[in-house]
């Protein structure tokens, strides 16, 4: 798919730029329209599965609704209290409602943009391309990559330690406090083995000639191509249209 083929760093930078753009908008129409645009781009050019998307997007919707309610309920005293609109049978000051809507839509839009990136980007490629396009030092980049491999290992290990301690008869924790103490007990074996593993990995990397030096070649090369510019243009068109329509509506 189109979004998957883009240069990850360029994609990230573009998205960050639009998040900054959004932060300068204080009315609800632009974020609403741009949100629709972002969602359309994600599904048309990213082929993201709807079910998975909803699973991750729902928490943001809940969060945005919560924000909407609190910003209306705890809004500053409006300049023009007589200008009200009626909502759910109560009349509310129009100004507060609009600010609240703008805020929550902005949250949703930032979430949609981030999810667009997360669902269409291979994290490994992102890190590799950050080294190539954004001059991220290899020392940090490969550190993160090695750490990324560790996560599932740590999860497995935590399971084993949990079982092992249960066998010793410690795991009859019922209260939160006891559970917390149990987790503290897992910490030493977990840390001991993590440190040892990290050390071994570092040794192995060094003995393959890794020095953290910036002069290195790349097997997977990432470059910025025409399609990357096309992506920015698509997003820019969407943003401009949303802005213009909102301007027309006043």
């Amino acid at each position: 798919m189109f979004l998957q083929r883009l240069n990850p760093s360029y994609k990230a930078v573009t998205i960050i730029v639009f998040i900054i753009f959004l932060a300068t908008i204080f009315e609800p129409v632009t974020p609403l329209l741009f949100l629709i645009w972002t969602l359309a781009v994600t599904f048309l050019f990213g082929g993201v599965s709807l079910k998975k998307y909803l699973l991750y997007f729902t928490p943001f919707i809940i969060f945005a609704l919560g924000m909407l309610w609190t910003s209306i309920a705890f809004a500053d005293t409006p300049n023009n209290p007589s200008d009200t609109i009626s909502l759910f049978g109560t009349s509310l000051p129009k100004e507060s409602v609009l600010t609240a809507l703008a805020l929550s839509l902005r949250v949703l839009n930032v979430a949609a943009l981030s999810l667009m990136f997360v669902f269409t980007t291979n994290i490994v490629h992102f890190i590799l391309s950050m080294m190539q396009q954004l001059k991220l030092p290899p020392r940090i980049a490969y550190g993160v990559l090695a750490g990324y491999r560790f996560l599932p290992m740590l999860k497995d290990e935590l399971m084993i330690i949990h079982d092992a301690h249960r066998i010793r008869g410690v795991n009859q924790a019922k209260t939160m406090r006891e559970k917390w103490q149990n987790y503290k007990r897992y910490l030493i074996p977990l840390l001991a083995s993590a440190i040892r593993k990290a050390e071994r990995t570092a040794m192995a990397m060094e003995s393959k000639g890794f020095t953290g030096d910036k002069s290195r070649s790349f097997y997977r090369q990432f470059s910025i191509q025409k399609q990357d510019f096309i992506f920015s243009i698509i997003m820019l068109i969407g943003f401009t249209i949303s802005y213009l329509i909102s301007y027309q509506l006043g």
Partner: protein
Amino acid sequence: MKPLLQVENLSLRYEMEKQNVLSSLNFKLNRGESVLLLGPSGSGKSTLTSCLNGLFPRELDGEMSGNVFVHGVENRETKPGERSQAVGVVFQDPETQFCMMTVEDEVAFGLENIGIAHQEMEEKIDSALALVNMLPYKKTDIATLSGGQKQKLALACILALKPELIILDEPTANLDPIATRDFISTLKDLKNNLNFGLIVIEHKLDGWTEITERVILLNQHGEIFHDGSIREVIKEKGQQLKEEGIWIPRVTEHILREHPYLQEPPLTVEEYRRNPVLLADREIDQPIKTESNTVPLLEAKDISWTVNKHEILHNISLTFHQGEFVAIVGANGSGKTSLSRMLAGLRQPTTGNLLVHGKPIKQWKESMLRQEIGYVFQNPEHQFITNTVYDEVAFSLQWKDMRPSQVQEKVEEILDTCGLLKLKHAHPFTLSQGQKRRLSVATMLIDNQSLLLLDEPTFGQDAHSNQELMKLLHKKHQTGATLIMITHDMDLIHDYATRVIIMKDGRVVEDCSPSELWKGDPEKLEAWQLTLPVAVQLKNIYEEEVNDVLTTT
């Protein structure tokens, strides 16, 4: 001509320690030559690796004296990373030597480090993978490879850099026997086709003698006590080898046990075939009579276990009686560990029932169940919960109604049997590998559980600590306890087990006594990725030869 590798007077001491890890090492290695470097755990073998590939003294917290020359150039005179092109290392732990996700990226990592041009990489990656027969796995995720495949990948990563010296740091310590055999034979082929110097660091010798017979032996103080032919050592210093905890080839050990004065004992099964000598059948200690009419200790009825729609165990029914010594074997991923966790009541089966003393496991109180069933994990550290060896053992007694003096007496008795009494104030994490293993077994012995499950307890241990461990387990078995042990070690099964259960793809495919298994179809054994124990192999060869003689005369 200068030798490929020359080590002169190499001594090394870590910052926090009083004694040298390595003392005055001197040896040479010529181009294309191979050597086995043997020593017990804690003899500084891995430290030596870091000295040879130039990581030390740069990264060392401590003092290092003496010189290491590769092609006449001292390691200290090279830039960081430069040595890696001449000296490649494959490490012991298959899990922690990679930093990328897929096979191709990992091989590329080394090439990138030395700045190989992008256009040349693909070809170099392919040829390196082809050398170790891993080309079909080029795009595979490293996490899904087996241990043996991971070690071959590690080797490919090194080969891609075309080093002149390859160091293997206990490369097969974490592999099962079949994967070990495969790794060694891959290496043997490579050695015939490519001209690299090879140092194999090991504590067991099986298989490696086919590659080279030159050995350098380190003792516990990090000194070289022999540099020469393996045959000489076995002849002259056999006893010392044993004391240092170095495994001599199992074939040799078996034959020397019967014929201690044999001048040229064979090192491999093939050598024995050429010159077989009579071996008497060894008596296996008779297991305590099991009374099958009593209620079985543990009964699994038709248990299955499904995780994420993936069936890990499939309709398993097993009955365990008191006094059995059961071995569970099978290839990696066949469900051995899952089954053992289930039998210990750590996991609930998706369907089916587990009965302990005839009572469903769900009706047991957790604390009561733990007094019936013990479990020794593969990595002993996972089980430690307190700060001293003494507390670790005493912890298991805290719920028992015992006077403090009784507790102390009992703990010290157990520590004494396990050879840990002197270390009772030490922190469990500071013990050596073998001591940690014994401590983890001790914590399970003190509770006097009637059933003890063990998950590959002999993994990565040296010869000496293995013997100690098996002695402990044997003693426990003699008291009438039931032991269920997951293992890859067929010799262990031959020597101790009364029953073998073979697992394949989450099913029990065989459940019989060891002697029945040895007599069975050899092709089946091959399919289950099992080998015959050395003693049985030798016996079969001897009988074949005798029959040949009988039929020809």
